[in-house]
């Protein structure tokens, strides 16, 4: 069983943190991962920076631009992570846009992920139908879990389809927005969370977008299995550096 699947079986609300690899400094990647694990986070999304991150708001855009300036590439990231499994046990997910993976070679990329010990992938601009037709067998060959997004606008029929193709969890985007655009949840989100919970999907759901603190984490995980924080964490390390990560994580988990 994959580390992600094991983690999902634990009887707790999972906190997953996204950060951009190679940010704030090129060589911070491994330290951020270690510090997140030590702070008690359940899962980590390692962002591969991209020049044109369509689904991201200003915070993650800026961290991606800086990481690329720092010299981050797919090859550099794999080199940084080559011994990561001697250091941490936490489930690791690589999150990035499809073009850099395509250029690396999808199969080579997946093989490298397996070798390093990356457990899953989130690729926002690889649609589920293209994945199913062209890439699913490759991902499965290397034991990687591919995570798909759903939004409040996604139809029930499509959610069922995505559920049938998924084998880990479903990334539930809390509202129609780019990352970091909104904070806090209203009635619309509550209704959406309840609607999805009532669908009794095969895969658990983890909520992302709009979660920044304990309050929003609790709201998001009332029904869902966990929640993902990205922009708020990037803002924290931008302001405070990477050594005080527990100061960000502790209040959320307390």
């Amino acid at each position, binding site marked *: 069983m994959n580390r992600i699947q094991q983690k999902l079986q634990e009887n707790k609300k999972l906190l997953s943190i996204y950060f951009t690899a190679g940010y704030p400094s090129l060589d911070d990647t491994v330290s951020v991962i270690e510090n997140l694990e030590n702070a008690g986070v359940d899962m980590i999304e390692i962002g591969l920076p991209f020049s044109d*991150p*369509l*689904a991201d708001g200003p915070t993650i855009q800026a961290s991606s631009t800086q990481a690329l300036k720092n010299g981050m590439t*797919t*090859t550099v990231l794999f080199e940084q992570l080559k011994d990561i499994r001697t250091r941490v046990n936490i489930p690791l997910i690589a999150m990035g846009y499809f073009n850099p993976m395509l250029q690396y070679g999808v199969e080579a990329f997946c093989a490298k992920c397996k070798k390093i010990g990356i457990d899953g992938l989130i690729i926002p*601009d690889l649609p589920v139908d293209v994945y199913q037709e062209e890439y699913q067998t490759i991902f499965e060959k290397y034991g990687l879990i591919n995570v798909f*997004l759903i939004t409040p*606008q996604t139809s029930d029929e499509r959610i069922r389809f995505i559920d049938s193709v998924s084998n880990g969890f479903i990334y539930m*985007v809390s509202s129609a927005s780019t990352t970091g655009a909104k904070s806090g949840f209203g009635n619309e989100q509550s209704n959406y969370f309840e609607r999805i919970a009532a669908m009794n999907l095969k895969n658990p759901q983890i909520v992302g977008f709009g979660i920044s603190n304990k309050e929003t984490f609790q709201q998001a995980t009332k029904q869902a299995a966990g929640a993902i924080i990205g922009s708020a964490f990037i803002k924290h390390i931008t302001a405070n550096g990477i050594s005080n990560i527990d100061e960000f994580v502790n209040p959320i988990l307390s």
Partner: protein
Amino acid sequence: MSYNINDKGYYGEFGGAYIPEMLYPNVEELRQNYLKIMAEPSFQEEFNQLLKDYVGRPSPLYFAKRLSEKYATKIYLKREDLNHTGAHKVNNTIGQILMARRLGKKRIIAETGAGQHGVATATVCALMGMECIVYMGEIDIARQAPNVARMKMLGATVVPALSGSKTLKDATNEAIRDWINNPVDTHYIIGSAIGPHPYPDMVTKFQSVISEEIKSQLLEKEGTEHPNYVVACIGGGSNAAGTYYHFLDNEDVGIIAVEAAGKGIHSGESAATSALGKEGIIHGCKTLLMQTDDGQITEPYSISAGLDYPGVGPLHSHLYKTGRGEFYSATDDEAMQAGLELAKLEGIIPAIETSHALAVFKYKTFQPNDVVVISLSGRGDKDLNNYIEYFNL
């Protein structure tokens, strides 16, 4: 071999819809409806009426006598520069605004580089009384001030794109982000034959009025519907797609594309995508694009803001890959000289984009009996400052 789009939204291996799930409902709504709506008699009637009475179509097919003498061949110019707003762009914005209304959308967003598509979008929004937001790179706003003023005068809000390189590709990113944040009431009018399926096909079909008219006009003048060659400049490739469309499957008609080589293909400052690009994904479609080995999209350069795009529409990637199209690229200098030549020989000042197409004679010699139709995609008024600076006028 078919050069048209297949039912999955691909031209050969290029195209598709590589979009985040947040955009899926909008793009899918469009995909399911665009052909149906375009085929409705009431849509056709309204579209054609506006093209005639508002845009001023059909645009003339003009036999360029002195240019023909100079290059010892028969050259016709398809005068898209005479359209309302000064370029071919308006053919597409008229079509898309009618589409948006039939889809019940209330708010229009667009990206623009040089500002031609932004102006054409702001124009049709004024015409229909719809809210219009145009994303434009901060750097382009500074260098295209007259078009920014036009858009504002037409009632549009011009939002500076501050991310990345602050030019066309970043304006496109910002427009896509706006659409993600406004998924219900907004239609995104993409200005070129790029983006996720069905955009490349929809834009091509709206622009195909260009080649449709060429056929009937040429029949009248030359007794045949088919020229030996059709020539167009390519950035994203919307005027080219419209110019080629009705000739794609007739291999007796040669298809010629001229890209912007900037300061030279290998100068590091170029926008010659077919020569420099590799297959990848940009703005939701699989196509040829300029990128690093790591798959980061690189910033192109051309003196022409309208050709300054790191990708090319998927139709054109297919034409290049299959050899159906002949691809050339003209440098800044070659294009500027070709623009000046047209002004002196025919009394027409072309847009700098169009000047690239006119530089085809640098690279290709035609036979005396060849009928060569060049898409004169836009007029040069907007580029006067560039011409003044370049030629010390």
